[in-house]
């Protein structure tokens, strides 16, 4: 499988009246053709910002990519001009947004919104574009596509609109699809249908998908690999099975403990206490220290070295370092508390 995206040491900052928010602080990941990477994490951990920086859609001038590269098919998107970015957006990389109720323009017909990207990027006639739009609507499972093309967004249900948003994203046959919480605004049955749709589309077009979500159920169904984000960093990454069955980072363990399970009846859910750190001045050490049940003295002081239990799996945590068992470094915090 060919590698199509490589993100190295990405930093994104937003300047506000209160100071500079370091929303993304050194994120690395890569993505291969036909693969689905899920980026998971709670609100404000920087997952959407990461996605938007790949599209270069972070609101400027407040937000900017401070450092790092986004290598997409050999080009560094972080340094690409706006004009070239417009040729990449919608054609090579597409995006699906969270709320299908607001992602479609209420005053334009579905057909218009479907075909405008195609007509902008590829020199096709109105007829060809319409033909392609019909195919796409058919692919995403909208009945009577011919009549539907002339209708407006308010004439569709939420699930239907999300299908249309997906059709719009796919009409130029992109290599990479970024789905920012694509099922969050939908009810559970529609969620399942949309996730299944992703699967069929991936089988047919071999598109790579970055799935951004906070819903581990969605991850379990749709992802191949998982990256867990916390306070602007990826704290653990691995294949779906590695992360679900052998979570290494205490934060990942906490996330998994906080969702209900079918096989453990009657047990209370365990929430993660506390709140994420302030990203105006993020901690120097592990950002999860304050909420971590296993926190040690060293966690506060130094950012953890990477622990790699397998070639595809890593976690940034001191717990797995051999040195932590030296008496001088450990348990200081536990003694004091």
């Amino acid at each position, binding site marked *: 499988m060919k590698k199509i995206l490589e993100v190295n040491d990405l930093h994104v900052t937003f300047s506000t009246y209160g100071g500079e928010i370091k929303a993304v602080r050194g994120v690395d990941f890569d993505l291969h053709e036909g693969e689905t990477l899920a980026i998971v994490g709670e609100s404000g951990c920087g997952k959407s910002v990461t996605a938007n920086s790949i599209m270069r*859609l972070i609101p400027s001038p407040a937000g900017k990519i401070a450092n790092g590269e986004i290598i997409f098919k050999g080009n560094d998107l972080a340094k690409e001009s706006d004009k070239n970015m417009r040729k990449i957006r919608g054609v090579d990389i597409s995006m699906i947004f969270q709320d299908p109720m607001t992602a479609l323009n209420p005053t334009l017909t579905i057909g218009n919104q479907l075909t405008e990207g195609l007509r902008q990027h590829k020199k096709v006639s109105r007829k060809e574009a319409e033909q392609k739009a019909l195919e796409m609507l058919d692919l995403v499972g909208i009945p009577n596509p011919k009549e539907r093309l002339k209708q407006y967004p308010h004439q569709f249900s939420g699930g239907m609109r999300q299908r249309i948003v997906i059709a719009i994203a796919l009409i130029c046959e992109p290599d990479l699809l970024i789905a920012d919480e694509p099922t969050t605004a939908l009810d559970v049955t529609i969620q399942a249908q949309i996730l299944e749709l992703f699967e069929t589309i991936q089988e047919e077009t071999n598109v790579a998908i970055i799935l951004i979500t906070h819903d581990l159920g969605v991850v379990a169904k749709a992802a191949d690999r998982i990256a867990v984000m916390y306070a602007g960093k990826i704290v653990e990454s691995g294949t779906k099975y590695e992360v679900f069955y052998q979570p290494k980072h205490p934060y990942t363990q906490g996330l998994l403990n906080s969702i209900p399970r079918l096989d453990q009846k009657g047990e209370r859910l365990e929430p993660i206490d506390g709140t994420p750190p302030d990203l105006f001045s993020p901690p120097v050490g592990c950002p999860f220290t304050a909420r971590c049940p296993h926190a040690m003295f060293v966690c506060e002081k130094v950012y953890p070295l990477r622990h790699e239990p397998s070639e595809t799996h890593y976690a940034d945590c001191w717990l797995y370092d051999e040195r932590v068992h030296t008496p001088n470094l450990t348990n200081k915090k536990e003694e004091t508390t």
Partner: protein
Amino acid sequence: MIRYILKRFFMMILTIWIIATLTFVLMNAIPGSPFNEERTSNEAVQENLERHFNLDEPPIVQYFIYLKSIATLDFGPSIKKPNDTVNDLLARGFPISAELGIIAILVALVSGIILGVLAALRHNGIIDYLAMMIAVLGISIPNFVLATLLIQQLAVNAGFFPVATWQSPMHMILPTLALATGPMAIIARLTRSSMLEVLTQDYIKMARAKGLAPYKVVIKHALKNALMPVVTIMGTLLAGILTGTFVIEKIFAIPGMGKYFVESINQRDYPVIMGTTVFYSAFLVFALFLVDIAYGLLDPRIKLHKEEGN
């Protein structure tokens, strides 16, 4: 659609009837008559005149004569200008007033929208502050002050433009400017605030994610949605421009309908008052009807009629 138009047409007739009746009542409530100032002390002449214009009849009979004249669109002769009928005056004045009004509303719309969009796109930039400064000035300076100021500075002192009347395109610039500035300022402010709101919407981000050219995102996706509030106040603005023409026509000595309207009231020229009022209100009511139609064209969610099956 046809049912909607018929319904609206009926409502328009009703509105005009109410306005006409109110005008008649007010006209009769004011003391005095058209012949008060005449120097003729001859009672017989006065009586003859009153009989000629049906002013000797009881008010209720006058009212029906008046309604009949509206229905037949024949308002009879003017009392003060014996050589003209009211219809003559309207036919002479209306084209000029319409020209002034239409040019002014077009100038206000185009420049207001452009100013508002630029301000929104350069939010908190120099263009934004400049545009909003112009807008605040435009809203706060009354058109008659602006008109005299323009005449004083640009026509009398600088001599760039003719001082008054309505003949060549050069004559039209100052009156249009004076009339259009207020509505333009309102439109600019409204366009700016609604553009700013629309630009944060998801569908704008989506349009940008499609890789569309910036002008397409702004014009096709943002502006169409942002214009809804502008269309909403178009009705009020039209009424404002209409009344504005009275003042502007008076100041610039433009021989439009507004001039006859003001004169007729001062002189108690009953047929002319009735004719112009009914004409103005019919015009305004029809313009409001067009505004409502424009709504439906801009936003498909607004339906003017019930669809079958829904």
